[in-house]
């Protein structure tokens, strides 16, 4: 019933729009990145530098790629919810329901009912992180291996954690730093700051180390194959025999598994940190006090 021509055309537009940003990124990479020999590990390429106060505003490869991921996910969402209905008519609806219900369940389990509004945020973190890491499957620069990108997310998460800690009252928040004894103050402050830093560096380090290891292994395999095949005449001697297939197998771990794993871990830690920092009892007490005050003023 819903498989008429118009429906299909919109579907195709969504799919094309999902693929287009990634294709754009690939084209950009091919145009700006000449094939290089040997081991070269560097950060994201800088496309544009705009002078701004404090630091220059840099439009780098990771910025472009993460914007492209954003567009891809946007159309992915549109595609998933296209033709949604009570009665399941499309297979993709199962997947959409699966995502929503799983994340809802995860949040209920880890954060409690008070945070049920966090489901879209967690989906967004997971999707952005996983899609960004998976970009390395297309030989693109994964934005998650740029500390600035992951750092931005970690700072947002840190802001949320602090916001929920402050809900228990500013005094309570400040008092929390001197517990269990006053001497612990510097350590507590350090621990507080360590949360976003560890969040960012864990994710960034894992993805970057994956790329580094992939490059190293690829170079090593090239060396091994040129060593083994050096007795052959002509161009056959430089045939990268061991570079065929083996890096692909390794990339299943370093790109797919590690990327998805880090996305999950990042989301998980976000949930635990936000709900862990929130003192429900203090919040309730404070709210009660406020309500009583409001009643008295009346």
């Amino acid at each position, binding site marked *: 019933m819903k498989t008429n021509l118009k429906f299909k055309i919109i579907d195709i537009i969504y799919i094309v729009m999902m693929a287009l940003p990634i294709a754009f990124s690939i084209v950009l990479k091919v145009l700006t990145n000449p094939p290089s020999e040997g081991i070269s590990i560097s950060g994201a390429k800088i496309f544009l530098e705009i002078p701004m106060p404090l630091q220059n505003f840099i439009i780098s490869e990771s910025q472009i790629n*993460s914007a492209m991921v954003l567009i891809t996910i946007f159309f992915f969402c549109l595609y998933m919810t296209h033709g949604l209905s009570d009665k399941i008519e499309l297979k993709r609806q199962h997947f959409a329901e699966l995502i929503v219900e799983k994340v809802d369940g995860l949040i209920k389990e880890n954060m409690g009912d008070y945070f049920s509004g966090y489901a879209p945020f967690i989906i967004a973190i997971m999707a952005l992180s996983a899609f960004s890491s998976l970009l390395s499957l297309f030989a693109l620069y994964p934005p998650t291996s740029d500390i600035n990108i992951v750092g931005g997310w970690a700072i947002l998460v840190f802001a949320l954690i602090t916001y929920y800690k402050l809900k228990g009252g500013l005094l309570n928040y400040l008092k929390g730093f001197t517990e269990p004894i006053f001497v612990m103050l510097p350590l507590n402050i350090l621990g507080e700051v360590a949360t976003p830093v560890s969040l960012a560096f864990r994710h960034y380090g894992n993805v970057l180390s994956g790329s580094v290891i992939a490059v190293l292994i690829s170079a090593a395999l090239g060396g091994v194959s040129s060593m083994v095949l050096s007795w052959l005449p002509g161009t056959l001697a430089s045939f990268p025999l061991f570079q065929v297939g083996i890096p692909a197998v390794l990339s299943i771990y370093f790109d797919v598994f590690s990327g998805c794993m880090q996305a999950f871990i990042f989301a998980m830690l976000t949930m635990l940190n936000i709900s862990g920092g929130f003192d429900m009892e203090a919040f309730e007490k404070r709210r009660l006090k406020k309500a009583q005050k409001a009643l008295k003023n009346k």
Partner: protein
Amino acid sequence: MQSLDIISVNIWQILVSLINLVLLFLIVKKFLYKPVKKMLVDRQANIDKKYSDAEEARNKALEDQKSYEEKLSAAQEEADGVIQSAVDTAKAREKEIIADAKQKAEGIVTKAENDAKLAILKAEDSIRREIIDVSTVLTEKVLEREISEDDHKNFIDSFIDNIGDGDE
């Protein structure tokens, strides 16, 4: 083309990535989470409605069944009553008819008896007369003399009475 260092912190990049995440949060919320959630709620409501409808229909069916059973038992009672009254009427009629028949039979018997008695009387009478006539003639002839009619009659009557007594 220039590259960044592997670790290079840039505030603007951090800010942009933060904004990106917020943007994606809004996108996911508006275009994925809310529609799916809404659909799930709709479906739940739909299912609940169907269940309550089914429950309602079931209750109604039970009610109907009860009322039908009541009606059925009432009809049964009515039928029993009708049959009972019919039986009663029939019995009454039967008695009536039997009584009637008995009466009629008795009437017939009495009439027959009466008729028979009458016939006997008539026969007796006619026999008596004949005998009287015959005996008179015979006696006249035998005796050739006149006998007083009255004497003769008395004599014959007593004779016949004796005969009749013997018959009876």
